């Protein structure tokens, strides 16, 4: 029987840790970082064989919830806007092509699963669910890491000597209700780099002059640090470790690949759209193209919560406006990833190595619009979309009823509808992570399973959605 591995076994040596982030700052001298026991399915053989078909994941959170009825699970309804034009795509799917002209072009690469269900109807809980991969439990929330942080800790061993970029990057995560979740029981080095895309363009793209200035200032800083090195030692490990982070940060800023990733052309702005989601997607493409260590990118486009005047063009804020930003951004991202050959194998594209997932935290109420001309939250059935990493595009799995209200076909072998937990399993599998793992020795003592079968109301199957790969 193999011994239980500790996080220490999975993590590289201290020397390697210094490559990115150092020891981390679990301590303000007051806490200790206990090595966590990760039980990696060693006592019973895991029934899961992770696919390992993806190097990267892009998760686009359509936050606030897009109306599935007028997008990826189109249904005629009394509330549908008059100007919507639905066409049958070459793949046989009915899709509002005039609303999504760009995404229509890439739908042959996208697999839709229309049978999702959520426990949650409330944004904060739903958005938490999407980011943490499990329902919010306020009793333990402090120690629960985001999915991206767990991925970062798992992929740490794969970071190369040359990797300087943070593994887990997000855009606009702080704009959703739940914000960017912490690393929970994991050390701080796996924390997300949450960026505001417009600010990042300004702050991260150092030109020659800015780089020189930074180097000059850094010399002064290093000089002062050297003078104080002995004196600062007496304050404990946490303070030392901060300086590790600082060194890593500077390395990142002066690694020419990082500022290069934050340059976008006028053509990019046109194709992706000069909006926040557009710039986020362009930057995501850049980060992946640099192949410098970023592997998990979470893009959040918030604001879809149109309880009122969802299809009213006279308001500033309606679904039309958000679709106008979303449509070119996501399409350009998928197209550009598909057009980028990978470094190793010219026949494969960056899209072949990247699993793209886009979904909301739930759907919107079907049928007629509500009393303020909007749609409200709907958890009983809603779709999630997948592309890249060998996903068989142009397919649909699962179905809802004529209204788009309830599920009529779960789209896989189980009678239960798939949930976010299954997206989590799919993501882990694609990255080659065995999702049957559990972490013991959390601060609360409660076991943290990588994928939680309990859900909010009972046991759910924790399979991945292998159907999206065809066959």
């Amino acid at each position: 029987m193999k011994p239980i591995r500790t996080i220490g076994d999975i993590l590289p040596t201290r020397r390697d840790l210094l490559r990115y982030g150092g020891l981390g700052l679990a301590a303000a001298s007051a806490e200790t970082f206990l090595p966590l026991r990760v039980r990696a399915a060693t006592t019973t053989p895991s029934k899961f064989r992770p696919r390992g078909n993806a190097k990267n994941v892009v998760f686009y959170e359509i936050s606030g919830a897009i109306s599935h009825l007028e997008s990826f699970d189109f249904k005629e309804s009394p509330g549908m806007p008059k100007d919507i034009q639905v066409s049958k795509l070459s793949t046989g799917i009915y899709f509002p092509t005039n609303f999504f002209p760009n995404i229509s072009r890439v739908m042959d690469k996208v697999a839709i699963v229309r049978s999702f269900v959520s426990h949650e109807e409330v944004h904060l809980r739903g958005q938490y669910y999407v980011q943490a991969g499990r329902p919010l439990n306020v009793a333990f929330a402090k120690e629960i890491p985001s999915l991206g942080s767990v991925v970062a800790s798992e992929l740490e061993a794969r970071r190369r000597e040359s990797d300087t970029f943070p593994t887990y990057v997000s855009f606009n995560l702080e704009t959703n209700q739940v914000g960017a979740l912490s690393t929970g029981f994991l050390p701080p080095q796996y924390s997300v780099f949450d960026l505001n895309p417009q600010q990042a363009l300004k702050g991260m793209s150092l030109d020659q002059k800015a780089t020189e200035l930074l180097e000059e200032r850094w010399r002064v800083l290093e000089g002062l640090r050297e003078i104080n090195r002995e004196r600062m030692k007496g304050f404990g490990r946490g303070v030392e470790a901060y300086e590790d982070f600082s060194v890593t940060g500077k390395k990142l800023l002066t690694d020419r690949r990082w500022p290069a990733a934050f340059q976008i052309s006028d053509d990019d702005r046109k194709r992706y759209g000069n909006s926040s989601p557009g710039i986020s997607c362009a930057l995501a493409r850049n980060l992946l193209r640099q192949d410098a260590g970023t592997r998990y990118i979470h893009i959040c486009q918030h604001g879809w919560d149109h309880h009122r005047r969802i299809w009213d063009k006279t308001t500033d804020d309606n679904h039309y406006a958000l679709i106008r930003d979303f449509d070119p951004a996501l399409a350009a991202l998928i197209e550009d990833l598909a057009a980028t050959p990978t470094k190793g194998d010219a026949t494969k594209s960056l899209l072949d190595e990247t699993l793209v997932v886009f979904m909301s935290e739930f759907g919107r109420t079907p049928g007629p619009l509500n009393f303020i001309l909007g749609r409200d939250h709907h958890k009983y059935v809603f779709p999630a979309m997948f592309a890249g990493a060998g996903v068989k595009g142009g397919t649909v799995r699962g179905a809802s009823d004529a209204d788009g209200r309830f599920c009529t076909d779960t789209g896989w072998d189980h009678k239960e509808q798939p949930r976010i937990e299954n997206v989590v399993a799919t993501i882990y599998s694609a990255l080659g992570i065995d999702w049957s793992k559990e972490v013991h020795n959390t601060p609360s003592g409660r076991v943290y399973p990588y994928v939680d079968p309990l859900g909010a109301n009972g046991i759910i199957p924790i399979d991945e959605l292998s159907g999206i790969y065809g066959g």
Partner: protein
Amino acid sequence: MKHLHILFVGAAVCLAADDKPPSTSSQATPDISQMPAAVHSPLFQSKKPTQAGVLTERVTSGLAKPDASAVPRRNFIDNHIFGKMQRDGIPHAPLATDREFIRRVSLDLTGRIPSSNEIQEFLDDPSKDRRARLIQKLIESPAFGDKWAYFLMDTFRANGKMMRGVSLFHMMLKDSLMADRPYNDLAGSIMAASGKSNYVVAAANPIVREHVEGKPGEADHADDLRKIHQMDTHDELAILFGKVFLGMNLSCIACHDGKGHLEKVNVYLSTKKRSDFFRMAAFMGNTRYIPHVENKEAKMGHFTVDDLAPGYDTKGDSMLRIKRFGGPSAPKFILNDEAPRPGAEVREELARLLTSDPQFARATVNMFFAKLMGVGIVDPYDEFDLARQDPNNVPNGWELQPSHPELLNALADDFRKNNYSLHRLFSVICNSSAYQLSARFPGEWKESYTKYYARKFVRMLSAEELHDAIATATSRPGNFGGARRSSAQAVANGEEAEVSQPVQMAMQVAAPRNSGELKSFMQAFGQANRGTPARPSQPSPLQPIMLMRSSVVTDRVLAAKDSRVQRLLDSYKDDGKVVDELFTATLARPPLPEERTLATSVMAKSRTEGAQNVQWALLNLVEFLYNF
């Protein structure tokens, strides 16, 4: 007792022959408080077989059995803390120097770094009790109200869910803190608050904040109670009051019995049932949360709160939790099973029962003790396990929860006896030698020393403190809006145009509403958005990048817009003086000789850019980012 302390330091000064005495002091007997830190350092690092090294060994090994006379025991806190260290043979740090102390206590009590004038005034104060006088001055300052009002706003997660009530609530908290309103009175007013509108009754805002929305859709009429899930809101309030006022996490038993779930988590709560929780929530059972309705739309943040509901329905459905299963619904206070007196207002009774329960005082003193000392006697401070508080009665397989059970009781007693005065509580804690220990620990630190408070724990500045420290150090205040001008009409009427000052410090803001670069900066440093469950403010690799590149810093280091760099360059021809002032304003200390040499040489190459770069470097030192 003081004698030994001086000997401890003084000896090193005499015998560390390699070190020159600092140029700041020419007295025969060096004033320890003026010593730059470099003089102390050979004490802790030198292993060379010099006399200084030998003396260091002797002195530090002497610390292994802490001499009661080495650090004065100023109050009952010290008796407990140093007494325990003495009994268990735990070494401790020496007292912090005056310079370390003034910066630390200013940040801890008011969230601000001290100005050069304030530092000099303090160091020049000849009185023996100058630290006590400084503490008193800080507690009585408006910035004390700012910092602790902000803390309470974070605790109550005060945000847009209070709509316009958020500023009123903030103002009320600040006024209460500055007036040293008895904390039991403040807490009681929040629990029992009711009124036509939370825009008028400040204390009702936390209640409004916790509302759980009901079914979406039109409001039938102005009193449409279905827009709010009444039962779930009762539950949320029971959880809130349990957490904030009793330091207990009742959210688990809000869903299920403790038995079968909490045996490994919380022994006391594992004996409680969901029905006990219902009966605690039942104190809110008569309360109605009625949103104001405009154009058939309910305003989710503008409420009437009254007590005309029939009572808690233990069979009511839930939006957030497992269905309620029935059972007794008469209110019963969870800690002592007491019922409200017949005829009394039920929530007033909750206020009375809760604030008079010993756990209220214990949780409160522990929470503020944790904030000031870095770790609570019970930690985390909202996870009390009441079955593990008595040293003579600890359940099998468990440890006693409080590190200093008698001290916790003593603090709670003192708090009660002094009419729940927060000013007094803060004063007693900050005046203790335990609080005033240095963060630098001589010798090898062991994790097991943590529970003894053997040193002061360092902490990273909060996002708000950091912003304000940067603004103060560089003399470039922030702008958080809030400036009010007279209306054009008033001016037209001949009234004098009135302009009130805009809010310049992050700590003065009622609820953060930043955007753009400032928002990115504040969030990187852990600013709470008060919507989500509180997340631990943790370090991240993005933080040093922010300090290096964010305009929050880079804009302020420039010799422009009347910044400190600009003013110093204009006022002083002597680069050394500019450097001295930059260090004091930023780090609350003068430069070490080597630092001064380095900084002036940087300025010699290019005066303006050099000064800017020095200012930048100072803001990027870990010494600036942390409170020691």
